[in-house]
């Protein structure tokens, strides 16, 4: 891949108490690339993302960002103090550098204009995710970091949200680092899957990972099939028994 690297975490290790959470993990995101982190609960996915964002310090290893990298971060959940009255508009305006991307453009993009004067406490889960996405966009991001973006969103809303994320990515040509359990929705557009369970079990293009024994061991055949089925990249074919074989010419 010749695209320049946006952010690189090298050889990250973290222990919480006695429990090793991440062991020698390295991740890279290039310009315009979609990297999806998958793995069981408690595998250290969120911790890894938080380290890359600079919110947690790793015990060893380091994170290198391109100079002046602008990151749009969408946390898994946003807790707003019930005692704090604040409208959606104000929440978006409070973003630093909010002047860079006009709020109206951002609203147009994520289609939440009608929510502007609502209280943050009063909007639904799906609306909240859009507001968070809007806040990320105020940064005019070169890298979007999404921690389970579709959490708390109903099924029909999930597909819509991922579609929206994809539109944004194409329009802004930003790299994406994402944690997601919705493999069937995200894999078709993922360039690199990283399967994490404290260490990197396997990584590569979705269709490669889906046949990796360590992936199968973690997720079982069903998930693997959804990986394989939903990646509409026909750069592989199947042998007589149905197993996927790598294509020679990509």
């Amino acid at each position, binding site marked *: 891949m010749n695209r320049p690297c946006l952010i690189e975490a090298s050889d990250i290790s973290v222990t919480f108490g006695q429990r090793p959470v991440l062991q020698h993990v390295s991740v890279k995101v290039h310009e315009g690339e979609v990297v999806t982190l998958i793995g069981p609960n408690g595998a250290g996915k969120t911790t890894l993302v938080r380290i890359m964002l600079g919110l947690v310090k790793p015990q060893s290893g380091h994170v290198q960002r391109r100079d002046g990298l602008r990151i749009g971060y969408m946390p898994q959940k946003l807790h707003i103090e019930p*005692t704090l009255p604040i409208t959606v508009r104000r929440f978006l305006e409070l973003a*630093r550098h909010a002047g860079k991307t006009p709020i109206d453009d951002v609203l147009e993009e994520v289609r939440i204009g009608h929510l502007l004067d609502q209280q943050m406490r009063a909007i639904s889960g799906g609306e909240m995710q859009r507001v968070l996405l809007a806040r990320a966009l105020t940064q005019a991001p070169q890298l979007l970091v999404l921690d389970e973006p579709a959490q708390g969103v109903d099924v029909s809303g999930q597909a819509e949200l991922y579609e929206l994320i994809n539109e944004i990515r194409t329009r802004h040509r930003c790299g994406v680092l994402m944690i997601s359990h919705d493999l069937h929705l995200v894999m078709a557009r993922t360039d690199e899957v990283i399967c994490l369970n404290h260490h990197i079990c396997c990584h590569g293009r979705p269709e490669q990972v889906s046949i990796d024994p360590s992936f199968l061991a973690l997720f079982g055949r069903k998930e693997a099939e959804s990986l394989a089925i939903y990646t509409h990249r026909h750069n592989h074919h199947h042998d007589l028994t149905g197993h996927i074989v790598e294509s020679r010419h990509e």
Partner: protein
Amino acid sequence: MNDFIVRALAAGLLIAAISGLLGSFVVWRRMSYFGDTLAHSSLLGIAFGILLDVNLQLAVITSALLFAAMLLLLQRNKTIATDTLLGILSHSTLAFGLLILALSNTVQVNLAGYLFGDLLTVSMTDILWILACSIVTSIVLLRFWNGFLTITVHEELALVEGVAVERLKALLVMLIALLIAVSMKIVGVLLITALLIIPPAAARKLARTPEQMALGASVIGCIAVSGGLLMSWEWDTPAGPSVVVTACSVFLLLTLVQSLRGESAQ
């Protein structure tokens, strides 16, 4: 009207106005125990001030700022839960303060005054201290309002967006420490947190924006001070508790109004 009541009113209103603004952050950031601890530790400041025979106001301000800095540092390396840490410090500083005061038999100390406040003995010097603190606090708040709000709404988003979160947090805590230090003599160690918490909590019921809540809290604080002083004047009740009781009444009244409104809306 007598001079002392005018001075009490001036001091009280200034403190209430600033408490409303800073108190809103205390409520939003769940720092009420933090405020309590700072207030208790300032009694230790008084005690040291008396021991070392230095200006008490300066001693309290210095100790409050030092304690605030220490709390910030201790919170950062999370070896014990924050509320446990605050609980330990809050009560032991109060106890140490009381011990030192009891052992230093050189001066007669109006202990009840420091614990419960003495609005009616406010001197011109006290008012000047409070005025200076109010001016400094207002300027800093005006300058950094949005920054304080950004880190309060969501600290991690602010951090990722490149906001100097730790510095703003420290600044906010120092402002609160300063307010507590200059007002402890007026409203007392045990009641200052009440003035920081109750007016914002009451204002929350009517507010739609953070600014409405903060300014509303200032107004409610001023009502509480005026009402409390009136009570004290009429029935000779202790001033500090009278102020708090008035604030609490406003809170209850607004809660009632809100629940009635909620019913009629349905």
